[in-house]
Every structure is written in structure tokens, then in C-alpha cells.
């Protein structure tokens, strides 16, 4: 089963000085308040966070519900905005693959793929033996997932105390935290270029197609960064 020592080592990563707990918790407080204002009850809000556990996806769902979009439209809009999770999974799971670990652990723990957990794992995986990395990852994922659920709960019940300025403060906190983590992770030419090109191309492609802008910016920016990095090495 799951190695408890490495599971808890991963779980405790949320308590580290540079942990995403504050940023993540605050963002889901904002989501909890938003869902309540949309007419969700507490069970629906908690299940939404538990089952989706992806902030941009939840925001898109909320926006779509507000404008009265159909289920198919919600599905496509969320799928487009959360398609980034595919390259994130492919660039993470090979680091944790071990022949002695059962496959179900990988399929189960893919639900924890989200920016905060992914960035923590990317910066810490080398400190864990390869066989135990999946247990460490499940620990990190469980911790960030718990913070998201608790944040939603707090946001739902404290929504009436949050004015618009406070909600704006909570909303900017998440992109700023991720931006700092990305800048901090930019230690090779390929990653640095990926971050710079993605930042520039994402908004540019928004003018061509808002739905496809993230994917197009990511695929084109990432591919150019990869090719330049490979040329530089050779």
C-alpha cells in the first residue's frame, strides 16, 4: 500500500516556509464565496472543489453558469482551460514511475495534478528515492487538496464578511504566487524561455481565439523553447 513515512513527508510539505498553503487557501476562500453567491449550497460547493480541484476550471464553470451556458458549452470551456493538465501530467509521472509500484496509485493520484502540487513535486522529487516518489506525491496532493476543501468551506461561510476589495485581493494572490514559483523554477534555458514565451504568447493568442489562447501559447512557446534549448546544447 502507501508508504506512510513518505506520504507524511509529502503531506508536511504544505507546512514548509515557502508552502503554497496560504495562496491556495485564499484562492479557494474566494471560490467558496463566489459559489455561494452563485446559489450553490455548502455540499455542492465542497463537492465542486473535491471533484474538480482546479481553480481556473471552477472559475470557468461559475462564469458559464452565470451566462446560462449549456452543459456541452461548460464541458468544452472547462476542457480547454484545463487541458494544460495533460502536459503537466506527462512531465511529472515519468519522474515517479517504478515497476514495483501498482498502477492504481498513478491513476488515482492523477486527480491531484494542479499547479501548486505540481510545482512542489517538481522542486522536491530529487530528495526522495524513485520507488517512494509516488507515495510522496500522494502526500503532497492530499495536503493541497485538503487546503482547497477547507478554503472553500471558510469562503462559503465568510462570504458576507468579504467586500469587493478583499475579493480582488484574494483573486490576484493566486497568479502572483504561481508567477513567483515559475520565476523561481526558471533555472535552465529551456524552462526560462518556456516561461517567458508562454507569458508573451498566451495573451497575444487571446486576440485570435480566447478559448485556444492558453493551449496555443503553451504549445508554440514551449516548442520554440525546447528547440532553442536543444540547439544550445548541441
Amino acid at each position, binding site marked *: 500500500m502507501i508508504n506512510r513515512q513518505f506520504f507524511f513527508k509529502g503531506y508536511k510539505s504544505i507546512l514548509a*516556509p*515557502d*508552502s*503554497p498553503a*496560504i495562496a491556495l487557501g485564499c484562492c479557494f476562500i474566494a471560490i467558496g464565496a463566489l459559489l455561494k453567491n452563485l*446559489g450553490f449550497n455548502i455540499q455542492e460547493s465542497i463537492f465542486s472543489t473535491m*471533484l*474538480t480541484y*482546479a481553480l481556473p*476550471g471552477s*472559475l470557468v464553470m461559475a*462564469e458559464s453558469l452565470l451566462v*446560462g451556458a449549456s*452543459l456541452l458549452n*461548460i464541458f468544452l470551456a*472547462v*476542457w480547454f*482551460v484545463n*487541458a*494544460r*493538465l*495533460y*502536459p503537466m*501530467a*506527462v*512531465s*511529472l*509521472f*515519468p*519522474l515517479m*514511475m517504478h515497476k514495483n509500484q501498482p498502477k492504481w496509485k498513478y491513476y488515482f493520484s*492523477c486527480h491531484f495534478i494542479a499547479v501548486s502540487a505540481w510545482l512542489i513535486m517538481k522542486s522536491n522529487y530529487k530528495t526522495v528515492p524513485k520507488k517512494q516518489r509516488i507515495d510522496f506525491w500522494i502526500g503532497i496532493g492530499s495536503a493541497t487538496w485538503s487546503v482547497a476543501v477547507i478554503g472553500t468551506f471558510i469562503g462559503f461561510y465568510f462570504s458576507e464578511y468579504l467586500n*469587493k*476589495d478583499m475579493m*480582488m*485581493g484574494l*483573486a*490576484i*494572490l493566486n*497568479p*502572483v504566487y504561481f508567477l*513567483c514559483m*515559475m*520565476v523561481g*523554477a526558471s533555472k535552465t534555458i*529551456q524552462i526560462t524561455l*518556456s*516561461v517567458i*514565451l*508562454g*507569458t*508573451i504568447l498566451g*495573451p497575444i493568442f*487571446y486576440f485570435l481565439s480566447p478559448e485556444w489562447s492558453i*493551449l496555443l501559447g503553451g504549445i508554440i*512557446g*514551449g*516548442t520554440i*523553447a*525546447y528547440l532553442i534549448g536543444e540547439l544550445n546544447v548541441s
Partner: protein
Amino acid sequence: MSVSIFYAILVTSLATFISRFLGAVSSQGIKETSKLFKWFNCLAYATLAALIARTIIFPAGVLIDASYLSRIIVVILSLVVFFVSKQNYVYPTVFSALCMAAINNYF
């Protein structure tokens, strides 16, 4: 609201899980030293950067009501705090929330 919240949650979860699950399945045969892995790593970082830039420049939710200038000022100042605090993640994050709330309250 035209669709029920219950089905909206289910559809959102499914649309999110598909990408995660397909990623987990298709990464089975990929080695961490391969070129394909490196390429996907670049794609992941670039896609995330594109998402963050879009969230700041073309936001959804309450941030729409914050002016473009205020968002840019907050992000730049937060990055300054990040570098001044020797790449600490907590100070710029907390600063950004306080700064955004203050700017929108007083200006």
C-alpha cells in the same frame, strides 16, 4: 440558471479529469531522460505561464473590475518584493493581496 448545479459540477469534473487521466496513461512509456519528456516539460511550463498571463491581463471573476494598470502595478511590485526577499514565496503573495485591496479602496 438554465442548467442544474449538480450536472454542471459533474461535467466540470469530467472535463478536468480527462486531461489528468490521459496524461497519467500516456506517460507510462516515457522515460524522464527522453527528448519527449523534455518537450512536454517545456509545454507544461509554457502553458502554465500562458494561463497566468491570461489570468492577469484578461481575468475572469472579480478581477475584471480592477483596472488593468492596478493589476500590472501589483504584479510588478510583488515581483520586486519576491527578489528583495531573496525569492521567498510568502511575502510577495501576501503583499499582492494587501496591495490590490488597498489600491482599489483608495484609488
